[in-house]
């Protein structure tokens, strides 16, 4: 009898001549591909997800992970994932789950946008030696300020300014909860956020006490499950985020199974050990926009008016929704595009619901400007930011800052294998198994993440320098410095971008 009619995706192979039987692969694979057969390593290749942990830890380079050549026949219409999902559904009757962002080949607008550079009529600026400012403040900006001269002749504010979150770079870490990722992974994010002068976000898993020292670099999230939420929690960070939706699974709740709720996670989420942690699809105190307003102001009252962010998935009507959110009093609108990552989502949802961040961002920025309220809230763009170029393009389209999740995890070893939902991540990221999480030394991996942010910082400065501007606010919403390549006129119109050559 066959085991599954879906052949394994990958073939884990060991060069038996090279193998010295050190068994490191057995230790390292979180998915239990390898086992000891008495005289040699046994391989259950069905379980392999190509996370490449074993490959990197094999001292003899004896391991090779191949894409299985014995795949379904290639078919331009019936894609591999279609056939595989049907087979899996036929076997289980279940909804195939997946992790990370959608990998289907929808058009990637970022890759059809190119950035301007200076030649002759204005000078480029040398970012290594001359000032180049990336500092960004998130929060509500007044439409005008009153400034008066003090008795000492110096300028001072006549009215206090609204609270802001100060970022040294317009990049933040997207919400990833303790539970969906390990505490060590959160510590990596927190350490890097502090070092880089930016912020991480707890996600809806509560705030573990080990993160308290990083509170100046943390946004705490309130979502439908309200895990770990109390006044102390609300006040623990620099801002509070209300999560309405997530790009990878708009309109879908979450379900962290009881097996994944060991003591620490339970404590942090303020639920008993071993129970399922359910995040309902909606927030049950928000059935309409005026309810959102109430929640926003309730949180503001509870926190002495810290900035409140509202995170939504990019959906068709996102511009109107965002406008409502801003009018409801949010200080930040967090837009998560449909390429956004997830720890677990039904693949049918992830791959088919929502709209890309590029469209959503352009539409929201435009709408808020048309309504004259763009200054009322900052916009964070997320959902598939892969490089500093994506970040620069998002900012030029109108974002105040971008949020990265997957890119941060990649610095910790993630290969985007997409099997986060299994809780077996060999890299110790999306797992709570102590033997796996112990691998992710927060100090060592924080260094790598800090390097990434520094590298992107340099790259952003290079881009600004080439654009001849020395401050990020002059790129923000400056769509004049973007051009589209190979985009139809509708798309260009939505993006508010001219075609290249114009």
């Amino acid at each position: 009898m066959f085991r599954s009619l879906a052949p394994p995706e990958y073939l884990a192979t060991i060069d038996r001549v090279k193998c010295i039987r050190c068994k490191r692969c057995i230790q390292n694979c979180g998915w239990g591909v390898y086992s000891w057969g008495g005289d040699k390593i046994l391989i259950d290749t069905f379980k392999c997800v190509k996370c490449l942990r074993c490959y990197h830890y094999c001292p003899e380079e004896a391991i090779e992970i191949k894409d299985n050549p014995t795949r379904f026949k290639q078919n331009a219409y019936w894609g591999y994932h279609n056939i595989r999902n049907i087979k899996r559904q036929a076997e289980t009757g279940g909804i195939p789950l997946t992790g990370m962002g959608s990998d289907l080949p929808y058009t990637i607008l970022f890759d059809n946008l190119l950035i301007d550079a200076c030649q002759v009529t204005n000078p480029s600026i040398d970012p290594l030696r001359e000032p180049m400012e990336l500092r960004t403040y998130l929060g509500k900006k007044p439409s005008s300020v009153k400034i008066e001269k003090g008795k000492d002749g110096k300028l001072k504010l006549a009215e206090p300014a609204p609270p802001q979150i100060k970022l040294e770079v317009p990049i933040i870490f997207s919400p990833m909860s303790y539970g969906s990722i390990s505490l060590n992974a959160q510590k990596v994010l927190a350490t890097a956020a502090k070092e880089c002068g930016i912020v991480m976000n707890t996600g809806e898993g509560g705030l573990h006490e080990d993160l308290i020292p990083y509170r100046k670099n943390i946004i705490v999230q309130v979502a439908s499950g309200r895990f770990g939420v109390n006044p102390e929690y609300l006040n623990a960070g620099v801002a509070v985020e209300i999560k309405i939706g997530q790009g990878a699974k708009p309109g879908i709740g979450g379900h962290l199974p009881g097996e994944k709720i060991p003591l620490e996670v339970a404590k942090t989420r303020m639920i008993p050990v071993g129970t399922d942690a359910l995040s309902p699809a909606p927030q049950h105190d928000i059935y309409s926009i005026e309810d959102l307003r109430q929640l926003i102001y309730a949180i503001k009252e509870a926190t002495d008016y810290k900035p409140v962010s509202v995170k939504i998935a990019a959906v068709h009507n996102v511009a109107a929704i965002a406008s409502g959110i801003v009018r409801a009093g949010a200080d930040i609108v967090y837009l998560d595009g449909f390429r956004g990552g997830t720890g677990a989502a039904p693949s049918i949802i992830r791959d088919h619901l929502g709209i890309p961040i590029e469209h959503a961002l352009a539409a929201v920025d435009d709408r808020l400007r048309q309504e004259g309220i763009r200054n009322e809230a900052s916009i964070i763009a997320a959902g598939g930011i892969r490089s500093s170029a994506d970040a620069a393009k998002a900012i030029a389209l109108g974002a105040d800052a971008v949020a990265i999740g997957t890119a941060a995890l990649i610095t910790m070893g993630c290969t985007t294998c997409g099997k986060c939902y299994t809780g077996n991540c060999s890299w110790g990221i999306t797992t709570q198994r102590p033997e796996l999480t112990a691998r992710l030394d927060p100090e060592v991996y924080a260094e790598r993440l800090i390097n990434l942010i520094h590298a992107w910082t340099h790259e952003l400065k290079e881009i600004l320098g080439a654009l001849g501007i020395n401050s990020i606010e002059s790129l923000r919403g400056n769509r004049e410095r973007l051009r589209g390549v190979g985009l139809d006129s509708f798309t260009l119109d939505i993006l508010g971008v001219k075609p290249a050559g114009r």
Partner: protein
Amino acid sequence: MVKIDAKGTYYRDLNRKVREAVEKGEKEIVLENVNGQYYIGDGLRGNVSITIEGVPGNDLAAFMDGPTVRIKSNAQDNIGNTMNSGKVVIEGHAGDVLGYGMRGGKLHIRGNVGYRVGIHMKGDKKQGPTIIVGGTAGDFFGEYMAGGLLVLLGLDGDGPIVGDYLGTGMHGGTIFVRGEVDKEMCGAEVGVMEPDEDDLKVLREALSDYCADLGLKLEDVMSKGFKKLVPVSARPYGNLYAY
């Protein structure tokens, strides 16, 4: 000596007259009533001395190789751009971007200078450029400096004598500043130290010539302490890129 009246003369005609005079072997030229004519002395070679009365235009002495130019009033921007040798003495103030990429010769300025003075100056064993400023300087003084000598004296007052981003991107050469230097104002690549005996010798030599040109007393100029600025690394951005 020959006098040329520059009044109302377009720069091209004026510079042609100067070149013709030099070709005739004239050793001393006085330009009278100069106001705003660009490119005086550009690319000029030889052992001639030119005195300018009035404010000359931008890009004076660019690529100049040998002559001595004395400006009896203020001067504008971009003087001594990529100059190779020779000397420009300015009795008044001067503008921005002086001595950009200069490889040799001297700029002696009595007054203040603007932004980005002495940027990307270069030197080697054979020759090196020198700029000495008697007054104050704006931001980015000695930016990208790769060689040569920059001296800032701040003779005329007690306010801050140098702007921000001093020596940013510096990877060669030496800057001397008379008085104190705020490390906050320096580029990350710059180390500030006390000059030693050898440094003072170099400084004294450069300043004697400067003082002689501008009728100052060397003792007065040397009466205050100097700080020496040098690059801390010849490859400040070695770690910037991933390979």
